[in-house]
């Protein structure tokens, strides 16, 4: 069982992950912040507590699989993989630079430890379905996790996979919805309604959980920033690996979570922090390393 102390350790890792993400993006001059921050706590939980992986043997055939379907949050995955030992933290500097293993969107042909490539939204759940189906056919016991964005859920291909996975009774497949409630540009509302300018509500007023359940998914609804909810949800999903129902973890999150001025701000979908902002962020995240 996980303890409170464990969660403190995970929280510290998540703060460091957020710092590495935002400072790497700042150094690189491009990249995303809001999405990696909303996903960070769950990424830490997956890589440090839940998934059975071997950083020293990234292609180990029985490893649990992870697909970051919202591939533009790549820097979030890279920093967590670096903290976990899949790559040197130093290598984060190469993010988005020519010749780097750390491409703008995850590239399975470049970085060992990735399980597929993503970037064009809506495609990751299908690959995860293939991993899970393949595991069942092979008699392998690994679990497959796929993280989706709520904006991404507007892609039709996601719904193809949402419909097919329950038909194959894939209890070894878990989708995680990072429901941060913001997308890049957002909806112009109906005629005569003012655009609120806040990019909110990719799924305004829609009972997504109800829809997933009707399609045949077992749903667990959590606060995606609270380790005392994240860890039990992920562990319960994994424990249901032999069951006949895939799991959907509906995680309510805050885009830009972790720093007071990035939280809930669509502007931070892909914004570069200034040197002054980085100093504030470092303080807020309890980071002591020098700011370059």
């Amino acid at each position, binding site marked *: 069982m996980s303890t409170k102390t464990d969660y403190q350790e995970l929280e510290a890792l998540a703060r460091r992950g957020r710092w590495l993400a935002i400072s790497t993006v700042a150094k690189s001059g491009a990249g995303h912040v809001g999405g990696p921050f909303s996903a960070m706590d769950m990424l830490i939980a997956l890589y440090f507590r839940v998934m059975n992986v071997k950083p020293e043997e990234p292609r180990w055939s029985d490893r649990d699989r992870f697909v970051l379907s919202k591939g533009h949050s790549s820097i979030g995955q890279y920093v967590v993989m670096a903290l976990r030992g899949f790559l040197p933290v130093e290598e984060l500097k190469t993010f988005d630079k020519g010749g780097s293993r750390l491409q703008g969107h995850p590239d399975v042909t470049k970085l060992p430890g990735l399980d597929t490539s993503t970037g064009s939204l809506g495609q990751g759940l299908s*690959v*995860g*379905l293939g991993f899970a189906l393949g595991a069942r056919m092979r008699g392998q016991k690994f679990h497959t996790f796929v993280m989706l964005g709520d904006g991404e859920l507007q892609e039709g*291909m996601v719904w193809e996979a949402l419909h097919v996975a329950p038909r194959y009774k894939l209890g070894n497949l878990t989708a995680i919805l990072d429901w941060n409630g913001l997308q890049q540009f957002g909806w112009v509302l109906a005629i005569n309604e003012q655009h609120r300018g806040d990019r909110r509500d990719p799924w305004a007023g829609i009972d997504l959980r109800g829809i997933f359940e009707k399609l045949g998914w077992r749903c667990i609804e959590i606060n995606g920033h609270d380790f005392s909810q994240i860890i039990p949800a992920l562990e319960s999903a994994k424990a249901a690996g032999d069951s006949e129902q895939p799991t959907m973890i509906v995680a309510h999150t805050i885009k830009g979570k972790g720093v007071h001025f990035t939280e809930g701000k669509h502007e931070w979908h892909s914004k570069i922090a200034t040197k002054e902002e980085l100093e504030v962020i470092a303080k807020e995240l309890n980071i002591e390393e020098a700011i370059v």
Partner: protein
Amino acid sequence: MKALRDVFGDTLVSLAGTNKNVVVLDADLANSTKADKFAKAYPDRFLQMGIAEQNFVGVAVGLASVGFVPWLSTFTIFFTHRAIDPIRMLVAQTKANVKLGAAYAGLLTGLTGKTHQDVEDIAIMRAMPDMTVLAPADAIEGEAIIRWATEYQGPVYLRLARDASANVFDQSYRFVPGKTISLRDGGDVLLISTGPQSVRCLQAAEALHGQGISAGVLHVPSIKPVNKEEIVSASEKVKLVITVEEHSIYGGLGGMVAEILSEAAPRRVVRFGIEDRWGESAPNDYLLDLFEMSPARLSERIKKVVGGR
């Protein structure tokens, strides 16, 4: 003579006995594509994915990653137009070991009309890095290519016509990726073609022979990779090259030959194919005449081009 779709179903059944990793994914067209033969023989390795072609491409990538050799089966059009984004990002860009069994290729799609006649697929698929693009002419070559593609590690797009074509190859045929095949020598004009249209080119060349025109026929089953030197050396023997394909004249085999020859051996290249228009629902013979692909119409057209040189 055997319909190429039957070749597809039968060959998969035959090779699946020894290759236990072969699985077939269907998008609800198995009785048309003849993947149903595999469903009957290997129900546990036949995966119905429903009318959802983007997803089935992604699922195949996951299956390939754990060691299966997935053959996807649907109509050409649903690969190259509906599921092209996952084919590009998940299959080609990751070099996934996924085989795209594109059925009902070209114009002759069994009375379905322009919605189902894919005359842009070669242009799309050959522009994609790491994709192999193959188009067999007859049943023997079809079987050989399906067997080769199953053993090859990497993405393959199989452009497979629906119906039968006269056999041009015998059992000694062996497929070599990239290799072109001279079906007939000729000094006046070289016809370069692919898929079952090569067979009709051969028939046209035979008819032209009796009319004093010596037409060679070069068959290109492997559009990507392709042996450029063979295209060049075959073309250097004639002053006129005519490409013939059940495909748009833009970017397909004709485009490829023009690209190769303009750089390496400039000469006149005339492209026969679909000239920037859509097809329609009609029997095969009607369509072949309409687009001047039947041996009779083709030989008339070739005669005009050769005579007007």
